């Protein structure tokens, strides 16, 4: 099973890829609003995560997430139930 740390790492690298920045610039405590991610970028993030972990998430699954760490929590929970 994927650990929370691994889920966090995948989420950070997916966001970093879309923003074209190094992963370490996407801090877990950063709020998602800080990055002004648009609807197509959300789709891309979901696609990147799917390619890495084989899990299909919809951008809407992250609707309640406020921070990058929250997103990792959503992913971790989804992985735990599959």
């Amino acid at each position, binding site marked *: 099973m994927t650990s929370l740390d691994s889920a966090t790492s995948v989420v950070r690298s997916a966001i970093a890829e*879309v*923003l*074209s*920045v190094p992963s370490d610039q996407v801090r877990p405590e950063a709020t998602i609003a800080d990055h002004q991610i648009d609807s*197509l970028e959300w*789709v*891309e993030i979901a*696609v990147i995560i799917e*390619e890495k972990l084989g899990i299909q998430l919809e951008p809407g699954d992250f609707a309640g997430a406020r921070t990058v760490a929250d997103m990792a929590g959503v992913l971790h929970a989804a992985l735990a139930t599959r």
Partner: protein
Amino acid sequence: MTRVVVTGLGVKSPAGNTVGDAFAAVLAGTSSATVIPELAGGRAPIPIGCPLAPFEPLDYFTGRELRTLDRTSQIGLAAAADAVADAGGPPAGACGVYVGTGGGGLATLENLIVGHTLGREKVPVYAVPTLMSSSTASRIAIRYGFRGPCLTVNTACASGATAIGEALRAIRSGAIGSAVAGGLDALLSPLAMHAFARVGALSERVDAPAEACRPFDADRDGFVMGEGAAFLVLERADLAEARGARVYGEVSGYAANCDADHIVTPLKDGSVAADCMRAALRDAGLAPGDVGHVNAHGTSTPHNDSAEAAALHACFDGRTPPVTSTKGVTGHLVGGAGALEAVLALLSAREGLVPPTANFTGGPEADLLDIVHGKPRPIPVAPVLSNSFGFGGSNACLVLTPSPSS
């Protein structure tokens, strides 16, 4: 009649990526054609073209933006950004965007299909936003918040001139106060080049690329594909004056029509193109004798150049002013051609210096026309006629009247 002035220019072209560089290169009269590595080794039957001068997209876009743009949009948006910056402030009034393209996202589609078919890549999230031919126009509007009409027009190789002409009409009509207008294409891809080769349009002088594009020359055998974009900022004259804008000149006349004859070959006698030229001069309120020089479509195809020579001879009743084709240097930018040539023609008219037609040495067309070649020709500062003709018989003629350079 409402006057419409040019307040900003931007180019990304094989002749240079600034207006100054491009103008200097066409005055020097040396072809930019070369072998394109991506087309060599049998990947395209004709591996020569005029590539964009060295261009660094990161000078214009963040990495985040760049992921969402294809090459065509990068080039087009960068040229438009240069034009807006050159205008020295936001264009006055509601601003429209008018973009001409012949190929749209064709090269991007080609890459996508090849990659997808071979199973190399999934369909990217940005497939539709890059493939739609209106993509660059929308990107320009979004970047600057221009909320006037955002139009993409396609009249094949006349597209850039058509876009400028339609923007002129929209400003004259009162619908908008200003526009960013121009054209673009980037078709140096294996499929696109194979397709143009199939219809016999491309020069086969692959062993001597720099001699391949030779407009109006007796030994011409086809055009050389170029890639690039050019944009102009057009403003209603009174609005530009009120904001203290620097003015290059006016887009003073425009006409468009169609040969309605053949899907790729121009009407042999050039009679409909001649009508288009006359209509553009009438639209500018000028007589043929007022024109200081002509920037011809001059593709270097046997058919275009003979038909255009006949058309010019008829329009000017045998007294054609000096004629140049800057495609000898730049190659044929398809949708970008008419826009790049509008920029170069206006600068030539303003400086009183007509660029030479690269590689022209002589031929039957010289019996009809005074073709500038060898070196630039000084002329009095005067309006210029810029011709653009497209596959399908689309004709678009612009008249540009220079302001004295300060």
